[in-house]
């Protein structure tokens, strides 16, 4: 790769690589995103490589491992371009047929395309699959197109064009102005106006300033940022260069959690490429602007998603948040003015500058502009990543794109915003999703996790789950969060194990109010949301646990009884082997019995039984 010395050189280089590429050339794009990777996408790509070699297709067909294609439920996904044929659930065994039928024969392998679970209708091309209809991909746009390890790929689709425009044709004020006019709000959770944050930081005097990308996506159930960091790392880098130029920073940090090893690798590689190519470093393209980026790895602490804790962590300290003011924009990393934005915010920046603030502001709702990426998971048919304009309703996302609830079960709630968010019930399904409307119903946008729950989920258990997660993750610095979570967890453990008392509900409400008002940082202030929203919308479930000692969803195990249906039992003894306490016994080749005195209600017998002989009440 040559070192690019000037603007003209960049233009010329881009022209060269474009000229070398034939848009009509056959491409095989194998998804290696967070959903497909664990399903064996590496093996699928490997199989294509070998099969294409065996059939003499190397050089004729381009094979790429790309970022997330979106519809994770049907992975491993393979996209054939330029035809846009979308194959699903591809295994290495399917590869020879795809190569033979599609790559050589030019036909479609019908059994590998999308099929509607209800109507049975098939969709061959990506644009015909209902999951993709209604989406508006800006941040995810390039993910199923480019090889994230190739800077050339990013350049071919127009990458670093915005950086060039900004460094040579725009003043820092103009950049901030554009971001402000676009109405972009931080995609990490609180939704602060990005342009205003930049302006505040620019106005603070100081020679040394920093920009930080918050890639510490710790919300359980969220993987939007992981997909972007793994699938389009240069977009983040380009966004940060633009932000650095705007506020007057010359050093950026990308803070990635270590639980995302591939994201760490891709970002490290992309930064090295950009530096080698001359897009990072001193006097970028002879613009006079210096900017470089360091990668900083998290070490397993959810609280480091909070900006002051993240800064403490980069500085080499424990991730304890600091009281504000001073805000990071005034006094942040190493005491210097600092702008922190999350991955998706940074990835939005190049497109906003490139297409114009007004174009972006035309998308979305009055106070929430643009699009939002959601990780749609849980009890929904089409789990995966979606990007929709702000203001799309929950119903559209869950039932149209998401294909509804599996197994014909009923929708119960959708949890948004991670542990700081809330559970939204059925009556709000037509809620247009934006920052303010979610807040009105007691939840938050958060980073974009959207976990769908059906009638098999117990809302008391969900609240207990989040509180126990937060208790483990709270830094322990301030009293309301540390002791409040401890006591909430005590109470919720009591309720879910049949020890609940009437007064527990008001006691929890008192703790929640104080945690929300008096905690030091956002973690503690919002930690009560899962409890408050479930208490508000699903109070009857709490009451069933407390008064009747029953879990209506059959989830809270101490409240359940497991028995064996002698009619259904085949005496296969799978449950006997699995039972950790030896509670199951019976005569040979006859139906088995569970001794209720020994049974610890772990439910593993139920999970291993192939014949539905274990009954739960």
């Amino acid at each position, binding site marked *: 790769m040559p070192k690019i010395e000037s603007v003209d050189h960049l233009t010329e280089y881009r022209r060269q690589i474009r000229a070398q590429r034939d848009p009509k050339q056959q491409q095989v794009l194998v998804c290696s995103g967070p959903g497909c990777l664990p399903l064996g996408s590496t093996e699928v790509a490997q199989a294509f490589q070998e099969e294409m070699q065996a059939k003499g297709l190397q050089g004729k067909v381009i094979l790429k491992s790309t970022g997330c294609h979106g519809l994770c439920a049907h992975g491993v996904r393979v996209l054939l371009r330029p035809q846009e044929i979308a194959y699903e659930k591809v295994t290495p065994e399917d590869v020879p047929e795809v190569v033979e039928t599609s790559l050589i024969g030019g036909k479609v392998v019908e059994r590998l395309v999308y099929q509607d679970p209800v109507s049975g209708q098939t969709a061959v091309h990506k644009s015909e699959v209902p999951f993709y209809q209604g989406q508006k991909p800006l941040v995810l746009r390039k993910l199923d197109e480019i090889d994230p390890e190739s800077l050339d790929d990013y350049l071919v689709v127009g990458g670093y064009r915005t950086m060039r425009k900004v460094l040579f044709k725009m003043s820092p004020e103009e950049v901030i102005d554009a971001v402000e006019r676009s109405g972009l709000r931080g995609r990490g959770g609180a939704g602060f106006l990005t342009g205003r944050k930049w302006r505040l930081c620019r106005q603070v005097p100081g020679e040394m300033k920093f920009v930080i990308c918050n890639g510490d996506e710790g919300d359980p159930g969220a993987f939007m940022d992981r997909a972007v960091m793994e699938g389009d790392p240069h977009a983040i880098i380009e966004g940060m260069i633009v932000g650095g130029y705007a506020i007057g920073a010359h050093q950026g940090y990308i803070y990635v959690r270590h639980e995302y090893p591939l994201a760490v690798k891709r970002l490290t590689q992309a930064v090295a490429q950009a530096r080698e190519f001359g897009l990072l470093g001193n006097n970028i393209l002879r613009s006079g602007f210096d900017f470089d980026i360091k990668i900083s790895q998290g070490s397993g602490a959810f*609280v480091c998603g909070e900006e002051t804790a993240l800064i403490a962590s980069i500085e080499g300290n424990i991730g304890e948040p600091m009281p504000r003011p001073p805000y990071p924009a005034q006094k942040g990393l190493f005491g210097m003015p600092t702008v922190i934005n999350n991955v998706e915010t940074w990835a939005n920046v190049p497109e906003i500058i490139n297409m114009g603030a007004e174009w972006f502001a035309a998308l979305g709702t009055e106070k929430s502009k643009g699009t939002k990426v959601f990780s749609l998971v849980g009890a929904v048919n089409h789990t995966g990543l979606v990007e929709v304009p702000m203001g799309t309703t929950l119903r559209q996302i869950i039932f149209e794109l998401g294909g509804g609830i599996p197994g014909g079960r009923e929708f119960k709630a959708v949890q948004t915003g991670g542990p700081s968010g809330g559970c939204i019930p059925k009556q709000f399904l037509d809620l247009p999703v934006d920052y303010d409307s979610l807040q009105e119903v007691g939840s938050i946008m958060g980073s974009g996790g959207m976990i769908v729950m059906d009638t098999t989920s117990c809302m008391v258990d969900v609240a207990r789950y989040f509180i126990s997660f937060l208790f483990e993750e709270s830094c322990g610095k301030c009293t309301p969060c540390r002791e409040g979570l*401890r006591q909430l967890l005590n109470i919720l453990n009591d309720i879910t194990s049949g020890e609940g008392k009437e007064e527990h509900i008001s006691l929890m409400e008192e703790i929640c109010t*104080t945690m929300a008002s008096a905690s030091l940082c956002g973690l503690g202030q919002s930690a009560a949301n899962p409890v408050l929203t479930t208490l508000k919308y699903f109070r009857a479930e709490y009451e069933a646990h407390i008064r009747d000692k029953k879990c209506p969803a059959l989830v809270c195990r101490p409240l359940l009884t497991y028995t064996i249906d002698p009619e259904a039992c085949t005496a296969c003894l799978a449950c006997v082997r699995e039972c950790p306490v030896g509670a199951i016994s019976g005569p040979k080749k006859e139906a088995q019995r569970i001794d209720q005195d020994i049974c610890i209600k772990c439910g593993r017998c139920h999970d291993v039984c192939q014949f539905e002989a274990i009954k739960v009440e």
Partner: protein
Amino acid sequence: MEEVGLLINGIYLKVPQGYTLLQAAQQLGVDIPTLCYHPELPSEGNCRLCVVEIGEHPRTRLVNSCTYPVEPGLNVQTHSEKVLQARRITLELLLARAPKAKLIQELAAEMGIHESRFKSEDPYELCILCGLCVRTCREIVGVSAISMANRTPGKLVTTPFLEPSDACIGCGSCAFVCPTEVIPYIEKDGKRIIWGREFELVRCNICGNYIAPMAQLEHWAKLTGEPVEHYFVCRDCR
């Protein structure tokens, strides 16, 4: 020095810029309870007892007064219902954590709480994790022999690896500053025992009374540049 005017409980006052809300309230004679605050130490806002309500109705919020700087025209309520409720619950939570801590019992009683409605995991616990000891050791003594370890579930104040610390000079400042008297400190027969380490006390060359551990005298000597022998005479005889 530039002054900032603000309202505390409806009373307008001017204080020097850079003052915290707590300092301003103190100037006015308003009593705000604190646990982790010490005028000689950097404030961290840990205990949340000193929270006050700021802003205009209905957009008010609680902030900790020990770190929040005065702002021109800011409207501050130090004893509003919202503040008192937060203080009550915070104290009740602390009482459940450290039921034997006298100071917490007293502060809670002042707010009408005589027993916590929450579960107590350790009936003998005294530590409220205010961090005064850690900050004193680090900022005033300058040795950093103790620190917090772990996160919420097992957070505690300790020496590294829960072992006697080489860095400790046996000065006992941590024990003196502790508001709930949780740090064991024994001085007997010319010995001082703290954090699991036993220190021999040096006697005064003149009167023969015990002064302090050798490590502490050496630390003084290092800080002041005086020879350590200078400290072999107690303050009374000097």
